């Protein structure tokens, strides 16, 4: 058996599993958003309200039109995008700061510190969200401390998009830190030395050498954080406001509380499309670097 065939056969099981249990439902969902209510969608079609059945062979965009026309939805999209962007930026910055600190100091404190940043990886998201909810609540730590130092009108962050963003950052931090510390550790010290030798101060060497050499890890952190924040449910559901909230809870409400599954799946398609755009950035960054480093594609 040729290696090509053997490779294909061995690679098949997970691909088939995902294709069957995720790929097929994705296709069904996409069809349903276009109003194809038969086949795998017939059940939900019999329950749904405000449903737009297909009126052309390819379907209808009516559900999309309705969803996009909704101010509520647009607010959710902007909330999602804003939270995603802020969470990504802050996560990337924090990951860089911690990664740099660990890389350049190498002290025991730095190691403890990076270990600390990984703790959230091991805490179930429900619990994390709940903990964050209480920490930033009306009677939470933050307001308590603010009160003790005399700032009595400190805002309550729980049930606001700020808490959602904080929660997203908290949950995303470990992946970011793991990625960045290992990315930064992979930059040989000698390259930084060489920059200093050429006359760069340490910050300048970081900027000119470490930063560009860690584009891929940074893009990975940004894209994976972005995709998971965008599709998240638990954090915004537990810590966020009723509305406008992120698309995750919004979708869930639309599905359950409003009984409009077709519209909910339109939203899912939107999330998916946004995630795909982010994912494309990730793939592009990987390929670009691979090409430049002379790797055979």
């Amino acid at each position, binding site marked *: 058996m040729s290696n090509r065939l053997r490779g294909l056969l061995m690679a098949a099981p997970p691909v088939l599993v995902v294709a069957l249990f995720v790929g097929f439902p994705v296709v069904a969902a996409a069809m349903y958003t276009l109003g194809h209510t038969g086949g795998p969608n017939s059940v939900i079609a019999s329950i749904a309200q405000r449903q737009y059945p297909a009126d052309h062979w390819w379907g209808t965009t009516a559900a999309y039109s309705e969803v996009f026309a909704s101010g509520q939805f647009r607010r959710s999209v902007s909330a999602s995008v804003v939270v995603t962007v802020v969470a990504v930026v802050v996560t990337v910055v924090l990951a860089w700061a911690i990664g740099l600190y660990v890389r350049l100091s190498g002290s025991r404190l730095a190691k403890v510190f990076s270990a600390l940043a990984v703790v959230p990886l091991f805490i179930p998201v429900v619990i994390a969200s709940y903990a964050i909810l209480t920490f930033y609540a009306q009677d939470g730590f933050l307001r308590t401390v603010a009160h003790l130092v005399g700032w009595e009108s400190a805002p309550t962050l729980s049930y606001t998009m700020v808490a959602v963003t904080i929660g997203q950052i908290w949950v995303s931090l470990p992946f970011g830190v793991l990625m960045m510390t290992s990315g930064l550790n992979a930059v040989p010290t*000698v*390259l930084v*030395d*060489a920059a200093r030798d*050429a*006359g760069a101060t340490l910050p300048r060497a970081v900027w*000119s050498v470490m930063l*560009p050499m860690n584009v891929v890890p940074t893009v990975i952190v940004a894209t994976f954080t972005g995709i998971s924040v965008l599709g998240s449910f638990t954090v915004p559901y537990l810590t966020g406001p009723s509305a406008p909230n992120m698309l995750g809870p919004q979708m869930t409400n639309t599905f359950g509380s409003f009984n409009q599954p077709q519209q909910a799946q339109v939203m899912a398609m939107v999330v998916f499309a946004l995630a795909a755009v982010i994912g494309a950035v990730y793939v592009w960054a990987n390929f670009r670097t691979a090409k430049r*480093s*002379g790797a055979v594609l």
Partner: protein
Amino acid sequence: MAEPTSAVSDRQGPDDPANAATGAAGATGTAASAGGADRDADAGLVLHQVAKTLGGRLIVDNLDLRVRRGELVCLLGPSGCGKTTTLRMIGGFLRPDAGQVLIGGRGYTTTPPERRPTAMVFQNYALWPHMNVFRNVAFGLRLRKLPKAEIAERVERTLALVNLTHHIRSFPAQISGGEQQRVALARALVLEPEVLLLDEPLSNLDAKLRVKVREDIKEIQQRVGITTVFVTHDQDEALSISDRIAVMNAGRIEQYAGAHDLYREPRTRFVADFVGTMNFFEARVREAPAGGAGGIGRVAGPGAVVEVGDVAVPCQAPSALTEQPGLVGVRPEDVRVGQPGGVPARVVREVPRGHFTEFVLELGPLTLRAFVGADTPVGQETVPVTFGRALVYADGKLRSERPVGRADG
């Protein structure tokens, strides 16, 4: 070959670190002389009593080194002897625990690397993989905020110097090891540093390329006339490229001399062993009994014999005579094969090495290596052996009581 040693400078007073390593320099044959205010002009680089402890171990031990302006000095020594550590202290990547680093007579001991007039070529070249060749070389100039046109001009000029203009837009990963090496050199040279530092710059190249590139480096260094410290553990490299060589061992300089002197008169056993090949054995070296070794036609001056057990090998030029058996070293080319009056030795192996042939000989209890011209007759079972120069060591130090200069006169 003689080294004009420098004077005590007015600024420095009698403790002038510029005198560092004069002792070693003296070993090249010239006595240290006082006077003259040429220190600043002359001393490209001075290490004065520099010491460094790392991980609790003393890695560099009160090291003195003086490099003349425009000179190329090799730090040669086995792995772990502190070569890189020394170089990094010169470059500013490590701060000495004690002692001083002076460049062109000015103190730089605690100056960070970005403010030193040094430039380093790293062992793996340390090219920035995300910058193309132009940007790698231009980086330092950009930091200095030179006008764009000037940067381009200087980069191109330097790349022309190392013969790489055609690769100006290539990325490091796209060019060969030897080319990367030259980019690293250009990157260092473009800044016109006072001192060029190279840390085993050739060790990742293959044998053939290594020889070619080291000649290129030497050639460029001479053309630019830059003070250079070159770290290597390859004695052949050191011999062929240096003006002077500092042989390091365990954090100290064992000998500091030109290639010729270093090879011919290694002052310690360590140097003798590390530089070139050396036949070492226990022997007595005595005045040749009248009429004995005297029979050897070409011996200049009073003859001698090297006594190993029962065997007495005629020797033309021992560095000293001994009463008791002691350590004697004879270079393979000083094991003379086929001379009349020689002691017969069995040929164990004959290894053609290109332009010369290596003989492995059994002479009494000894196994000796001899290098002879490629044209020496092969296939003989025994050959007569005499010694040319023989170096006598006591307590690991050369005993040099008789001139051993040119045995061939």
